[in-house]
């Protein structure tokens, strides 16, 4: 077999094999122990319930997906712009940054119902919840990045009479990219969790409920296989999202930053 196929197998093979083994053991164990489905479903039950309720599941996933994406986009834009603002002046940073920290510590569980009261039930509120959760790491990481510019490069820009804005746009922001990407990785996972927990706590119901509601409903109805299916869907969503961010990270940093460069020793 050719080289790239062999490399693919080398990377994907072991985790795939572990997965198959795990699923196999789970299926066998539940069958042998004859555990009731509503307590611990078999993988085959989970797959079946996912297929039986495919359109419902897909609907919930797409609602959560939309909320997550929107929340994430707003966090990124808000976080980066906010950080640029804070980084442009020490006084502004010192006056505003402490409040950003406070924002970070507010628990979603307390905030989500209030957001729903203010903004009404629906996608809008959950997007706001997801935004609130994803915003802080974006802000923090970007700010650290903007403040971590190499001193020599900064001097170089001074020597070449760069204006403050030129220094920000051409030096500090590109130099902060590794930190921004770090923030993206954290924030994307948090946005998924935030959206689902927000749905769960805010209790938006029916068709607009998303995965958080689907989980609530399945728990109420004791439709445990479907409950698991929803949980797995949530994981898949989180993983997919993370992979996209990872891909972007490689694309933007792969050529020049240690964090993404593949060494010869791999």
């Amino acid at each position, binding site marked *: 077999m050719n080289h790239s196929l062999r490399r693919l197998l080398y990377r994907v093979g072991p985790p795939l094999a572990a997965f198959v083994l795990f699923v196999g053991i789970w299926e066998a164990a539940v069958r042998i122990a004859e555990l009731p489905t509503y307590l611990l479903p078999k993988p085959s039950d989970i797959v079946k319930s996912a297929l039986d309720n495919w359109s419902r599941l897909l609907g919930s996933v797409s609602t959560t997906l939309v909320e997550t994406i929107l929340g994430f986009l707003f966090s990124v834009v808000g976080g980066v712009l906010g950080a640029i603002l804070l980084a442009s002046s020490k006084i502004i940073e010192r006056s505003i940054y402490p409040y950003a920290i406070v924002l970070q510590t507010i628990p979603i569980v307390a905030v989500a119902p209030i957001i729903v009261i203010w903004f009404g039930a629906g996608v809008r509120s959950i997007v706001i919840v997801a935004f609130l959760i994803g915003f802080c790491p974006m802000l923090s990481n970007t700010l650290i990045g903007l403040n971590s510019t*190499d001193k*020599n*490069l900064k*001097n*170089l*820009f*001074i*020597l*070449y*009479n*760069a204006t403050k804005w*030129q220094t920000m746009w*051409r*030096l500090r922001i*590109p*130099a902060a*990219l590794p930190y921004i990407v770090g923030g993206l990785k954290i924030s994307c996972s948090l946005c998924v969790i935030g959206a689902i927990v927000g749905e769960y706590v805010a209790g938006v119901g029916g068709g607009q409920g998303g995965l958080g509601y689907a989980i609530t409903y399945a728990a109420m109805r004791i439709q445990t296989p479907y409950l698991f299916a929803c949980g797995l869907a949530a994981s898949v969503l989180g993983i997919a999202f993370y992979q996209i961010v990872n891909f972007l990270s490689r694309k933007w940093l792969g*050529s*020049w*930053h240690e964090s993404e*460069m593949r060494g010869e020793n791999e």
Partner: protein
Amino acid sequence: MQVLRLDGVSKTYPNGTVAVQDANLEVGEGELISFVGPSGCGKSTIFQMVAGLSKQTAGEIEILGGSTGQARRDNAISFVFQEATLMPWASVRDNVALPLKLRKLPRKQQEEEAERVLELVGLKDHAKSLPRQLSGGMRMRVSIARSLIAKPRILLMDEPFGALDEITRQTLQEELLSIWQRSKGMTVLFVTHNAFEAVYLSNRILVMTPRPGRISREIEVDVPYPRGEQFRSSAEFSRFVGLVNESLKH
């Protein structure tokens, strides 16, 4: 024509350290001057003051008849540091064109000038490469190319070859001489702790000693250019090096 004048320049830090004491110097157009001395002798401090990065506590510095700030604003002086200080995310060409980009010159002009200076340092084929793909010596060449793009009257170099191996260093020394000679009257101020390097390159050497940092001796190296390998292995070369080392001991 005089391009640089230091008149009784001193720099004392708030904690009492005297980095530079009473430096007096006149540099003419087209000279290649080296500042040689051990660490702490004040050579880098003088560099910083001439560059306008730090302010002297006494004395006067005049560049091309004006202040250091003015010279910088006019892009009349340019700099090369020991670290190449390239933007890792930008290509060689973009790195080199930075001074022009900051002056908001049109893109076409940036590209033309970038090509010109890359040719000067022999890196025309690497215009699109990224810094991490280059060796230490090549990165230093990019740094030099960048410093040349705005056609400066005075080039300040602070131990630019200090981090490189001997062979690369000698190659770059030759290239530097070649570039300097081809330039129309560019003055070079070169800071180094390496006596051999100072003798090979300069027409005048300022030996500095520390505690307090002062210019203890001026040595004229009246050997004509171009200087080649044979100069390096000549008796004259050794004599000058000897002179420098002797002065360093005082």
